[in-house]
């Protein structure tokens, strides 16, 4: 059973076909990087998989549970409660962190598990402190997001996503708003998670990182998947477009 399985997703904005026909699956413990030029549909794919965007056609299943079905060329979404359940399987880390500025670091991490997942407060707080230690910010529990650097904010955002105990964690260009030094902070955390066999899908422009950390790399262009293979295979691809794109790095 795949953690997430996507079949033949299509998505257009007005007359632009952003996703033409995308199918992929991710298995437990896999780290998959999605690379490709701007406008290739990487982020839209992630947004469709996380219900932030509705797809026009195609199906989507989490843990074998098909919450979006393709019926007569159109996507049909399951009931709200059903989708709510599917949303519990994944976490998402945003390019711009999107921490809640009026909550301190600890509350950013614990608010959703306590109030939305109705979990025990003491237990959630203990886990949150462990997560903060893991991302190297155990001294920042009481700080507010405005007091943190970009790299620290993103590490809190990762801890916030992990506190929900997702089966799969999506990253939407997690380092694009950061300078090279801070980028390394984030990449270290992601590598650590990969070593712990966290299932992850990472949309990124960090080619070298994608190569090191991924089990599979997906190269997208113009709403299509051009490559979907082990990193060494993708980097050795004979496809002209792939070579042209990778050659720039």
């Amino acid at each position, binding site marked *: 059973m795949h953690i997430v399985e996507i079949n033949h997703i299509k998505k257009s904005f007005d007359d632009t076909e952003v996703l033409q026909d995308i199918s992929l699956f991710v298995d437990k413990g896999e780290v998959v990087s999605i690379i490709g030029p701007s406008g290739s549909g990487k982020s839209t794919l992630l947004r469709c998989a*996380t219900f932030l965007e509705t797809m026009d056609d195609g199906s989507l299943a989490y843990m074998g549970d098909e919450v979006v079905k393709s019926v007569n060329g159109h996507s049909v979404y399951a009931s709200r409660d059903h989708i709510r359940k599917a*949303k*519990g399987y994944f976490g998402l880390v945003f390019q711009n962190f999107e921490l*809640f*500025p*009026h909550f301190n670091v600890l509350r950013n991490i614990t608010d*959703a598990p306590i*109030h*939305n997942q109705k979990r025990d407060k003491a237990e959630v707080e203990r886990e949150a402190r462990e997560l903060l230690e893991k991302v190297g910010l155990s001294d920042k529990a009481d700080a507010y997001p405005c007091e943190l650097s970009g790299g620290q904010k993103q590490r809190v955002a990762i801890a916030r996503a992990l506190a929900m105990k997702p089966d799969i964690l999506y990253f939407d260009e997690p380092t694009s708003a950061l300078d090279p030094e801070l980028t390394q902070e984030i990449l270290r955390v992601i590598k650590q998670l990969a070593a712990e066999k966290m299932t992850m899908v990472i949309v990124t422009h960090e080619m070298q990182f994608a190569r090191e950390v991924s089990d599979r790399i997906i190269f997208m262009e113009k709403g299509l998947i051009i490559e979907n293979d082990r990193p060494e295979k993708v980097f050795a691809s004979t496809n002209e477009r792939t070579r042209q794109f990778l050659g720039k790095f």
Partner: protein
Amino acid sequence: MDIATILLELGQGMLTTIQIFVLTLVFSLPLGFLIYFGRVSKNPVLSWIMRIYIAIMRGTPLMLQLIVIYFGPYYIFGVSTTPAYRGIAVIIAFSLNYAAYFAEIYRSGFGSIPQGQYEAAEVLGYSKSRTFFAIVLPQVWKRILPSITNEVITLVKDTSLSFSIAYAEMFTEAKALSAAVHNVGPLMAAGVFYFVFNAIVAWIMARIEKSMSYYSI
């Protein structure tokens, strides 16, 4: 007229002014929310009605609105009003007018919250109502507070427009007393009153702003 009488009458006017001020805020702050929700509604008819409403309220003098609301029932519908209606007309006119301004302030506040905040809340399983009350509203409140302070301070002074329909608040009383005693003393006293009232309002608002300064957006 002795000084005690003058002070007593000014004091009564002062209480009336405070009453206008408080009641206007009590009605216009929530009403502004309704107008804002109508203004940003997906229903184009409702949205346009609210746009026109806001345009009229902001585009015409408050004094004119006050006079229309006070005399309207008689001149338009031939309904004679009781003396008590004078005070009611003041509250209606001020509330309707200020609600339009507050609606626009709310709109700027909600409009300034990045879409990503809603998306983060959605991904983290926040319900629609918790997203609104726990995530969005506190940030909006912090952002709009300086604008609200401006309006509230203007309101303190605008209460004197009630003079145009001879409602016996602070300014109307002071003007009448000055005319009766042939000096500007009562008007000066009124000026001091407005000044002190606004100083208190500004102090309270600054305290509230400070209570939210532990974070920045």
